[in-house]
């Protein structure tokens, strides 16, 4: 006689909060019901409460995801894949039914791209801080962005706050960073900041550094127009207060996610690499930095 699956009550944190490396829930395990977190202890936000990105390599790198109630910095040069990582977390947050906020200093939020990452735009509160608001002085956009961030964290109930500092070149003052860190801890909201440089200093729990990306171009056939496949992203944990500093991983930001993620596609060699008889060949166009970029999709290391 078939027995009903057992239900495990998971008080205080979501199933993915337990998403630690090598501890993945198997499909045949009992279903875990989520509890909204009313039974928190003395700690304002539990250190093991994590927000998963649903990208296994990234979650392994961060020991289960970014911590809730803490600031996680993603730093790297322009085009290094910061937005792709933030979008993964935004997609994960909104798909769980939580609400996210996105503070946009450079006005670079592209709704179509974020939606294509799987995020529910209806659950992302976007605010563009261009200094046109209440305060109109030098450095307005940063000041307004910090005020807006504090306002959002003060409201409570947001699962994720993304602050895009764009190409800002100077760190925040200690007092500003401290205020935001305190506000994040009080609210329990996971905060991701994107910037070219580290801005929160010691107040960030995690600093994820991204190296210069390797763009991957490909051709369907020799002499055919080139296709842009995506970016190979190298990520390293520069700082992690919660452990795991120095870990590295390689990710791939793909232009055609649904196709690229299928195992058959990843395993198959690219057409340009094979002759008609099946022997490997070399792409004739030397201008292309990499051929068969899909290889990068399956080569990653910790």
């Amino acid at each position, binding site marked *: 006689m078939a027995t009903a699956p057992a239900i495990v009550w998971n008080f205080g944190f979501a199933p993915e909060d337990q998403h630690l490396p090598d501890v993945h829930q198997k499909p045949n395990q009992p279903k875990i019901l989520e509890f909204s977190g*009313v039974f928190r202890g003395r700690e304002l936000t539990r250190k093991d409460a994590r927000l998963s990105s649903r990208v296994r390599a990234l979650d392994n790198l961060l020991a289960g995801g970014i911590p809730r109630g803490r600031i996680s910095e993603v730093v790297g040069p322009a085009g290094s894949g910061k937005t792709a990582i933030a979008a993964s977390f935004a997609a994960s947050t909104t798909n769980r039914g939580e609400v996210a906020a996105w503070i946009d200093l450079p006005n670079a939020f592209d709704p179509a791209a974020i939606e294509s990452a799987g995020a529910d735009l209806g659950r992302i509160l976007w605010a563009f801080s261009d200094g046109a608001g209440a305060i109109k002085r030098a450095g307005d956009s940063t000041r307004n962005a910090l005020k807006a961030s504090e306002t959002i964290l003060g409201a409570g109930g947001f699962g994720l706050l993304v602050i895009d500092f764009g190409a800002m070149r100077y760190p925040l003052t200690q007092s500003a960073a401290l205020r935001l860190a305190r506000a994040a801890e009080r609210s329990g909201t996971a905060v991701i900041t994107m910037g070219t440089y580290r801005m929160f200093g010691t107040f960030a729990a995690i600093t994820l550094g991204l190296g210069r990306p390797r763009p991957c171009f490909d051709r369907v056939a020799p002499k055919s127009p080139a296709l842009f496949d995506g970016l190979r992203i190298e990520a390293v944990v520069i700082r992690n207060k919660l452990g795991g500093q120095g870990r590295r991983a390689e990710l791939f930001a793909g232009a055609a996610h649904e196709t690229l993620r299928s195992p058959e596609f990843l395993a198959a060699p690219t057409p340009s690499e094979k002759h008609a008889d099946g022997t490997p060949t070399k792409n004739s166009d030397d201008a292309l930095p990499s051929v068969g970029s899909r290889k990068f999709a399956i080569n990653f290391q910790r």
Partner: protein
Amino acid sequence: MERIACIAVADFSIAALVRANPALRDVPVAIGQNLAPHGELISVSANARAAAVRSTMTIAQARTILPGLCVVLRSAASESSALDALADAALSLSPVIEPDAAGHVWLDLKGLGRLYDSEEHLAAELVRRVARIGMDAAVGIASNKEIAYLAARCGGVRVIEPGREREFLDWMPLDAIGLDEFDPSGALEATLMRWGMRRLGDLARLNPDAVATRLGRYGVRLVRIARGEELSPLVARPGAETFAESIELDYGIENLEAFAFVVRPLIERLMERLAMRAMVAGGVKLALDLDGRRKFDRRVAIGAPTSDARAILTLIMLNLETAPPPASIEQIRIEIEARPARGFQADMFLPPTPAPDRLETTIARLAAICGPDNVGTLRHENSYRPEAIRLEPFAPAPPSPVVSRNGDAESENITRLIVRAIRPALEIEVLENRGAPEFVRGANIGARVVSTAGPWRMEVEWWRDGADDAPARAHRDYYEFALADGGVYRAYRELKSNQWFIDGVYD
């Protein structure tokens, strides 16, 4: 049995002025017919009365007794606002109320006994609510309007138990009931004093016909009240649906900083009134009387209904900064467009989300910080143009117990490639070699082209050519350039003008 409560604000005209200007709270205040030294006082505050200032004195006489007396003119705007606020305080407890212009409100207490331990508690709650709107009130509770009014005239909180009305009326001193309201000339009061009448019980024992021949209609009414025979029904009036506060300024305001200082208490009082009626502000109408009898009206939209006074003030200031009033401001009237506040019940088994009222307040604050056009849900417009976006109000659906389609999707190490928009598109110069882009030069950019993908031709919205509000047709070739600076950019060439632009960077 019917139970009626009466809220009475002593010296209502002065209380309304003090409410509008809290700095006058501890100052002896009097209202004059005019501000000339021979002008008579109409009403005096309790602390001025304690110093022997009376309402029939001239200003010069009063200032001889009390040099620090502050004499002001009566303000119809303040009284109207105070009366509305008093009605709101009453309506927050009972739906059946009857206000009058002299600062009295009667409430029907039917059915409220279940909500409060006793009528004393209910009366104390009424006093607290009136205090929240900036006035001190006395409350009387009895089985009819007149006795409730007389109980309130005694000051503080006084509850007349059913069946003990006669006892209360017999005790009620005549000088506490305000005989000048019956006969403003004062002859009635003088006559009663001459007859040795000190309490209502003394009057009740007189023959009404004999009193009528000697004191006229005022006397008859007084005897009927003393005998508990004056029974007028409670005439319910609907509560005001407009929430407005006004202030008349002695001197014109010419700068917005001073304006904000004056307006802030008005907004805070309005928010208090809204809170008592379980409502929030959905919009603000600003009506300013300017120097030279000019009017200045402005409607300030609020992105999301809120009860946050600070956010509303910021929005008003932002609005006025864009187009300030052309002359000094002499009178301010703020009217709030009220919306019902939404309740929220959190679910224990779903992820927490912001409570609607807090979310609305947050959005209103964000609108004040970032600008009203910079907050909301950003969506891609229904268009083939990549740059076409639209902003919608942020209103997330409640979380569903069913996880959405991507909820369980998990990939090994692949994320989706995201393009960061460059708004507006950056015009660049592209140096070509035999038709192939070789070097890109523009503001903040200048690098060799390492790899190129494309072109992908796009020709859209030609069908809208000629429409008045339509953008020009887009006829472009799109490319992806990997530059030597390490970035991959989305670029396009306008085929009509042969101009190059970069409108995004892959990140």
